[in-house]
């Protein structure tokens, strides 16, 4: 049979040429639902106070650690030597607490201190003498 159609409107589009088995749609939903996998219900995790503050505690501990390390290194770097400046400077009343702590760790007897001053004076005299010899003569 030959059929020539010139316009789409000539075909009745309300007639559906595709068929489905009997009762297909009646059983379809049930079939789909029966094939769905079970989902695990995961109870939402309650966050304890410790879990909430833990990062801040770690951060604070880190800063304390850094402070202690710096403090320790600073003490060690100048604690072992007595420089001229340190040994001759008289501690003023306004030196902060940290300096107080420092001086309390330096044990120099009065005798040692005078001995040190005497050596300084002798050294200074020697340098003065050398200076005068070399530059002024």
């Amino acid at each position, binding site marked *: 049979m030959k059929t*020539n*159609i010139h316009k789409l409107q000539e075909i009745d589009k309300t007639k559906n040429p595709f068929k489905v088995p009997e009762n297909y749609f009646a059983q379809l939903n049930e079939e789909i639902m029966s*094939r769905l996998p079970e989902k695990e219900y995961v109870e939402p995790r309650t966050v304890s106070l410790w879990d909430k503050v833990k990062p801040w505690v770690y951060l604070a501990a880190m800063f304390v650690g850094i402070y202690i390390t710096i403090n320790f290194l600073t003490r060690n770097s100048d604690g072992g030597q007595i420089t001229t400046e340190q040994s001759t400077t008289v501690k003023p009343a306004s030196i902060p607490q940290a300096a107080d702590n420092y001086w309390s760790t330096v044990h120099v007897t009065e005798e040692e201190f005078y001995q040190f001053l005497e050596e300084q004076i002798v050294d200074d005299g020697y340098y003065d003498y050398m200076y005068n010899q070399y530059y002024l003569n």
Partner: protein
Amino acid sequence: MQSEHKEMIDEEKLLEELHDPLTSRKGFGRLVSEYSERLYWQIRKMVLSHDDANDILQDVFIKAWTNLENFRGEAKLTTWLYRIAINESITFLNKKRSQNNISIDDDDAFLLNIIESDEYFDGDEAQKMLQKAILTLPDKQRLVFQMKYFEEMKYEEMSDILGTSVGALKASYHHAVKKIEKILGEPN
């Protein structure tokens, strides 16, 4: 307008149900009974065979169920489901073509066979001719034609589903109609 508003409220309620682990299965049951038939016909008109359409539809709902947590409501539920259905249908067709060593530009013999001999196709001669003419269109244009011509879907909705501009869809539909009418007008 009022029915659209009602639909939106319904969808909001349905979404709440779906995202609550205690009611999600029941809500999904409502979703299935609401959209299964529409989606079936959309898939069926792409793959033509009832058995294939049935398998794809089941996969669509399983995919939707397992990915429900990822659906945040940016698009409408229907749009989301249609997108899954269309992707699954096109993936199926491409797989069939590669199995049969058919290039995308060749006629799909396996689809033509369904029109000729499938027990669930009983169209008259004119309907057969129309279906064969539709098969000459590229997949995406075929989709546009099916949605507009048979389902009388709005271009805006089609645009949301297919991610193509309304203008491009209108042009695509216009070309599809011209091409089909040309084929129908050719002497057999």
